[in-house]
């Protein structure tokens, strides 16, 4: 028996991706929504268990390498799991599982009956892509999985009820394809210069040729491509429409994971492949990222204040939060990378909770516009509790996960002697207070409009996942061991032998 378990453990990096991959066509063959949901949910649970095992193994035993098809790297495709991507794998698969638990009622309300099994097929395919991006140690393989996750998310967004969802999905398709193409051009330039696509091999070969122009151009193309995918200001224009028009469950899943995975790839390329010395000493990447991140923090929060649709408001808030993560990356220090990874994790929890709560509200009142929130504080008390808890976390109030993020971010900024950044972080958090307060005001201090007195709480199958996500925001504000220990170990690995 132990032999079997040992065999299973040895193949975890591959199973992480290929279990959801096999589940996707099964969902299509299932043909019925219920059966497709069972398949998708089982695969997501298996992926979460795999990610948890990988996180445990990488944290205690070090980096795991897996040779796809038995071909040794650098010729074959290598999957490499260390603490950095194990944390991302855990976040992505856990969020997918909780959101899938939330799905049945929400999907029954929002997706046409005939295409619900297609919804689950696309959802699990998107999960496959995101997990694949994180797990692979091959630069071209990143592009392949980037396309899998992107194409499936375009389809998922287009399934949103309004006609606007189609234009939003099309806009995202154009911008996403440009981003992926830029990324591919960068990888192509690297391949031209080094003759390899394996990340570890690239890392070994780039220092010798790092003064050549194609390598600098590759860095620029890859950074711009990933910034587009991650919706870093000013390349964020696709994001508000996409998040606002997508079905609720899709908004929750994609907002919590897709941009985060792109930021992880940015971390991986900047620190592991190009190396911090090249990116930050030869090229002024830190100033580029720092300036854009600060603008994103303010532009995102400021736009969020004026939105009338709450999903769109949360989308703009995501742009600001991506600014915080990018700011942490731009500090190029161990503390900065830890702060970035911690905020990637915590922000995933916040946005998943908030967008799930939007799904609950949409389920009951068929709208997420702020004027329709009046009086919901009394009619949907538990959903509103979840919004308040996740909202406090978004602000960075002590005892929430958001506070931990801000704490590490501020510490990283102080360590870099950039005290004025601390003022900017505090100021942009105040802007977040304004839009979160608008929500609270609408929910608790206004009477429900006439004709909507009988609205009740969302069904338990939607409410429990939402509350779980909101609860995790509090839990990881009190017990920070998991994300902090993983992130600090990851930062040490990403900066190994540099600076």
């Amino acid at each position, binding site marked *: 028996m132990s032999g079997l378990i040992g065999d299973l453990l040895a193949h975890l990096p*591959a199973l992480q991706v290929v279990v959801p991959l096999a589940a996707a066509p099964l969902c299509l063959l299932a043909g019925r929504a219920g059966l497709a949901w069972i398949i998708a949910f089982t695969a997501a649970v298996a992926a979460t268990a795999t990610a948890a095992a990988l996180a445990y193994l990488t944290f205690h035993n070090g980096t795991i390498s897996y040779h796809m098809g038995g071909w040794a790297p650098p010729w074959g495709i290598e999957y490499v799991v260390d603490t950095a991507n194990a944390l991302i794998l855990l976040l992505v698969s856990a969020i997918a599982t909780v959101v899938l638990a939330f799905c049945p009622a929400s999907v029954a309300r929002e997706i046409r009956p005939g295409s619900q099994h297609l919804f689950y097929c696309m959802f699990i395919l998107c999960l496959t892509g995101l997990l694949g991006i994180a797990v692979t140690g091959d630069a071209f393989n990143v592009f392949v999985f980037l396309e899998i996750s992107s194409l499936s998310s375009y389809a998922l967004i287009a399934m949103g009820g309004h006609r606007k969802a189609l234009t939003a999905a099309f806009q995202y398709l154009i911008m996403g394809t440009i981003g992926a193409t830029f990324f591919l051009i960068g990888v192509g330039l690297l391949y031209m210069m080094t003759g390899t696509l394996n990340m570890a091999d690239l890392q070994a070969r780039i220092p010798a040729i790092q003064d050549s122009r194609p390598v600098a151009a590759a860095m620029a193309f890859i950074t711009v491509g990933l910034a587009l995918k991650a919706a870093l200001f000013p390349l964020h224009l696709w994001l508000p429409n996409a998040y606002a028009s997508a079905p609720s469950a899709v908004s929750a899943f994609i907002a919590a994971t897709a941009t985060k995975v792109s930021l992880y790839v940015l971390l991986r390329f900047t620190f592991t492949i190009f190396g911090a010395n090249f990116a930050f000493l030869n090229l002024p990447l830190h100033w580029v990222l720092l300036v854009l991140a600060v603008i994103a923090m303010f532009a995102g929060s400021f736009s969020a204040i004026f939105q009338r649709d709450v999903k769109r408001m949360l989308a703009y808030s995501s742009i600001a939060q991506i600014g915080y993560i990018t700011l942490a990356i731009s500090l190029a220090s161990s503390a900065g990378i830890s702060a970035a990874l911690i905020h990637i994790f915590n922000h995933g929890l916040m946005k998943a909770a908030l967008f799930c709560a939007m799904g609950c509200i949409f389920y009951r009142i068929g709208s997420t516009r702020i004027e329709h929130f009046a009086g919901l504080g009394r009619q949907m008390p538990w959903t509103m509790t979840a919004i308040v808890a996740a909202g406090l976390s978004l602000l960075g109030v002590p005892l929430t996960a958001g506070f931990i993020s801000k704490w590490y971010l501020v510490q990283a900024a102080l360590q870099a002697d950039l005290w004025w950044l601390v003022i900017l972080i505090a100021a942009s958090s105040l802007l977040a207070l304004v839009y979160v307060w608008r929500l609270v005001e609408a929910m608790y201090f206004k009477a429900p409009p006439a004709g909507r007195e009988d609205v009740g709480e969302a069904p338990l199958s939607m409410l429990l996942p939402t509350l779980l996500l909101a609860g995790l925001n509090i839990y990881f504000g009190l017990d920070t061991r998991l994300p902090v220990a993983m992130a600090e170990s990851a930062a040490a690995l990403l900066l190994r032998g540099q600076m």
Partner: protein
Amino acid sequence: MRHHRVLRIISKLLIPFIMLFALYVQFHGDFGPGGGFQAGVIFASAFILYGLIFGLENVRKVAPPAVVTRLIAAGVLLYAGTGYAGLFGGGNFLDYSVLRADPVAGQHLGIMVIEFGVGTTVAATMITIFFLFAGRDR
């Protein structure tokens, strides 16, 4: 298209050869240029030509949309299944060497099955895309 006798007869003559060429590209892919993707597109083009000349109703009788949609999934499953077969054979995922006693024969078999999965999915996807665009106005 009822009156275009030349088009109808020529396409009737061509379709079997298009399919045969697709199969050649499919199964000769591991010796020469070609493979599942190209073969799938060529195979689907036979159906698309038939649909253009003889109408959507007729091609739907030959290739029922429900079956074609399932073939998309079947191809991916064939691919993933071959990968899992490598796992159960004691190798890594997608390791074809363990599929047969002789590793070289195993590699041949593995790539053949994988490419057939790719070809199935690509052909079925192309036909589905044609159905979706051609059936838009109804």
